[in-house]
């Protein structure tokens, strides 16, 4: 057996040994952690915070496009059918007041004036 063969043999044995040991120590490590070291709420939150999530781009884009479509088409229809149109949304019963600087909602204007007086 030459020198290089000996070295190869040694590495192969070490590798197997490592694998075995690793399996043992991993399980043990986990158990030890669980028993001896309960993570704080903050740590758990931080773990979640840093957790990786994987998305498939196809379905995500499709969902986004659908959402956009619903907003663009559906919302105006919803608005038109159930609510006042923009020009009708102002309360037309508000009392207006004509002053030297403009025309205001009377109640709001009086609140402003009183605020400045105080």
């Amino acid at each position, binding site marked *: 057996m030459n020198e290089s063969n000996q070295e190869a043999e040694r590495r192969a044995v070490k590798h197997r040994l490592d694998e075995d040991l690793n399996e043992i120590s991993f399980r043990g490590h986990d158990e030890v952690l669980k028993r001896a070291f309960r993570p704080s709420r903050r740590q758990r939150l931080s773990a979640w915070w840093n957790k990786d999530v994987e998305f498939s781009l*196809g379905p995500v884009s499709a969902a986004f496009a659908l959402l956009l479509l619903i907003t663009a088409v559906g919302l105006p229809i919803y608005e038109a059918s159930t609510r*006042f149109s923009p*020009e*009708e*949304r102002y309360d037309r019963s508000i009392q207006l007041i004509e*002053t*030297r*600087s403009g*025309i*205001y909602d009377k109640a709001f204007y009086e609140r402003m004036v009183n605020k400045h007086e105080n």
Partner: protein
Amino acid sequence: MKIKLKVKHLVLGLLVPAVVVGSAAYAAPSLISAVSNVQADARGDLLNKLNRAKGDEQLKLIRENVLGYAQGYSPYLFDAYFDSGYVFNHISQRRLAEDPARLLTRADRIPLLRAYVERAESDIWLVQAADQLAYVYDADGRTEDGDRAIELALARANQSPAVRGQLLLLQAGRLLKQGQFAAADSLLEADEDSSIVADPQLRIRFDLLRARAQYADGHPQEALDTAHRGLKAYNEATGTEGGETQGTWARGSGDNGIDKRLARLERAIRHSIQLGDTASSTLTGVLKRSDGTPIAGAGVFLLHESEMYIGFGVRDERPFDQRFMDEPPYRVLTDDQGRFEIKGVMPGIYQINLGVSLAQADGWTYPINFYEWFEIKGGQTVQKNLTMRPLIGQEAPIDGKTIDTDTVELRWKEVPGASYYRVMSSFSNKKGTGTTGGYMSERFQRYTKPQASVPVDRFYRMPSIYWSFDRRSGTNVSWDQFDPKDLLGFSDPDALVSWTVNAYDAQDRLIASSYGYRLNEINASSLPTFYLKRKNLSDADRLLLERKWTQAIETYRSEYEADGTDTHAVRMLADLLYIRSYADNQPRLEREAVSLLEEANERQPNMEDTYKLMSYFYERADWARYEHYYTLYVKLLGRQPDYFELGNHAMSLLKRGRAEEAQAEFSASLATDPSHHYAGPLLALKLQGGLPLDEARKLAESYPEFDYAESGYDWQLMLIDLETERANDPAGFDAKLREGLKAYAAGEHEALAKRIKKQNELPALNTFLKRVLQVQ
């Protein structure tokens, strides 16, 4: 393809922005959404009530809740108007708060109004329902449904001539709007002999509309005949004088002057025939905000100048919606792209006014000058786009800030495209709503940057009264008519000063203003007001405020004697002596007031007092002293006099018989005066200098006058009449013309006025000279 993200990137990148945007959208229009929630509930209740009812009960509820308030009103009523009148008449007397139908959307109204038109009895409410239904359809761009609504009502209304008549008017009005002029004419003609015309109020409306239809259809002479016959028939039936409009219009006239309107239409038709321009035109355009957003459902009112004047040179300044209760001449709604089109427009001089909703008005304005007219010639399609501009944001001073420094530093947001700005200030009671308060117009000051540095003394010097009483004409003056606060003006440290700013382009067109509707928290986040407290009330001021006139006068006198530089004391003393001289009929005091003011002005020459003295001596034809103060005034101005100052001075030269100099100054004034106030005097002087009548007419064409006239064509028309009159006896006419004009150019105005009163043989010449003499 997959992407890998950490939860934190997902949250920070997507959710947080979404929340921020969402809450901003929720918070910003909080006032409006709070309001709409309340409204939405009330609306739901009202709709439930209306829909649950059956049969006649339902019709009754529709009448009360949907039609009721609108009885007697046109559906073309808007929450807010933009017109060229003075700013303080925008708000209508109409009380929306009492109208339950305000809660309903257009979509809500359609089935209810339809149900009413289909089932209700034939009476005036049916007309009202059909009118409103057609309007709502029009606003939704469903013109044909609108036409059918009227047809449906007509089919059900044949029992009652009055109802039928009103509906025919609505139908004819729609045909006219759609450009079907001949159809409108024959529709109205077909009913000429029916019982409808027995009612003079109805008949005159038929004639008014028919004259317009005939004119638009290319038959001006027939239109003129219709208008003429219509007026005659109305006057005979009602026993009124009608015809020409004289004097001012009684406010709140129940009849709303339909005969006056027909008379004005008749005159406008007659004038257009005289001027030889009778083909009708079309006006189109788009109404947008300056950011490009179209404004849908807005009312565009094209107003012929004959609709704006209610008498000789008297503008109708009532709130807009009170002016045109029925058959406003040319009105349309903008479509969802903001587009509008008005067909069958008579050639003439026009202004456009707008009616919009509160939401459309809030924070925006449609800037239009008082004299901003435009001409539509015959047979044209004129494109005129309209732009609403954001209100100018005022930065300082605001919210009742106390100013105790020597200058008031005003700042506002820059307006793109503005060539210069003007600032106006006024004082009022603490609420900023006083109707009396003085007005300091800085019309002579142009600021090229969005800021102004105004010395406090300029405010203090603003005259609270001009010295324009006239002993010769027996002016009746008493102390009761003066409010001490008005006399103190800006010198009262308790007076709230409000300011506004306007922006103009290089052609002097108003392009933006700070004045307008400010209805939500954002647009009304601050009030442009301040207090001037550079100085306190003096002892004399306090006495004045207590109306202790005599003591105040004596105390001002001793304050001035103690300190010769106390310009406030001497100015107040002069004003009070001037008033007393009239109130107690003591001419001596007027002389004392004048010399006190002259003395103070000599010590500290200033524009305000110089102007006051200049005007005073002008009125009294004291030309030597007038000239002295005019020269000083121009020096103090530090710039060339503008058209207003030039024109006044030209008139003073004319009164002194210095015609040649006057003519040059009138020309200079007219070059930039949008109202062409002095067109008449210039024409008279040019004619005196030998300009032939036909050339004078061309000159008149370039200076349409809008101040004294009822029409910008007045001077042209008078010159046409002069040419006609001259044709009969040129030599005799020329002699009389020369004689009259010679006296005018020599400044012998009173003598000329007396002479033409006695003359009758040349009526056109007399009218011309009379009108020339009216221009002051």
